[in-house]
């Protein structure tokens, strides 16, 4: 995997997160506020990744039509889906960390830490090595 591949993999997950949190906010009572905060945060990261992929002369991956979260109607289902996407983002950040030059590692680290803490907030357990286990 090249740096561009790793950026694209992370970008694809940010598209999914934006889609998921929009749906949670609209469909799950009681989670509208945290879903909105997550939605806004992921839009910022998505846009930064779009710029990075573009700067690397890549063709940025776009959002999918659906992500298989059609059954997210309850708070429990929403938390499980949110934890899942955050943990997969953590894994994408770990991958990018290894393929990046040192200057870009801080950016990958900020994404990794944000995803790890978000996963915790949405109900994932504490992990020794987020993104690796």
């Amino acid at each position, binding site marked *: 995997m090249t740096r561009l591949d790793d950026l694209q993999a992370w970008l694809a997950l940010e598209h999914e997160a934006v889609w998921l949190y929009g749906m949670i906010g609209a469909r799950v009572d009681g989670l509208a506020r945290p879903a909105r905060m997550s939605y806004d945060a992921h839009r910022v990261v998505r846009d930064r990744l779009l710029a990075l992929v573009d700067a690397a002369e890549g063709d940025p991956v776009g959002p999918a039509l659906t992500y298989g979260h059609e059954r997210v109607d309850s708070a429990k289902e929403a938390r499980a889906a949110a934890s899942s996407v955050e943990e997969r983002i953590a894994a994408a950040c770990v*991958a990018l960390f290894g393929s990046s030059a040192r200057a870009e*590692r801080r950016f990958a680290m900020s994404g*990794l830490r944000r995803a790890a*803490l978000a996963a915790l907030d949405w109900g994932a357990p504490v992990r*020794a090595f*987020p993104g690796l286990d």
Partner: protein
Amino acid sequence: MSRRTLLGTGLTVATVGAAVVAARVGGVLDDALRGVGVEPHPEPDPGDTRRLARAATAQAVLVATIDATIGDHGNLESQLRPLRVVADEQLVAVGGNLAATSVGPAPADPGDATAELSRLASESAEAREDDAVSAASTDVARVLASMSAGLSQLATSLGLVAP
């Protein structure tokens, strides 16, 4: 990169971490690396050796401090024990142990004691990030970055332990 591959990378580097520490004494680094299935480099980066050693030392202090807190505040044990398991997993992965580590007693106030644990984990998370960013080896960088994120999760969870 698949989750399974990433896990394999982590375990390999964890084992390498232990091997590197041992090799500093025995001078058998290349054999140790081959023993865990990693092609040795002509010269292992001495900076990465120090980064792993620092991670092991700081992690031993964190685990020992959790143990001291459990010893002094038994009512916190049920909340601290699962977090201790995670911290110990990190300790083992970077080749550390508690043999040469001693810490003082926990603060008398349970709230202060858990705040101190959270502070230790947070400080270590920052230090591991710095070492991950500067690491020469890609695998060492990934493992330390992931460990840093795990320490941030630990710091948050330790801060939520209720006396």
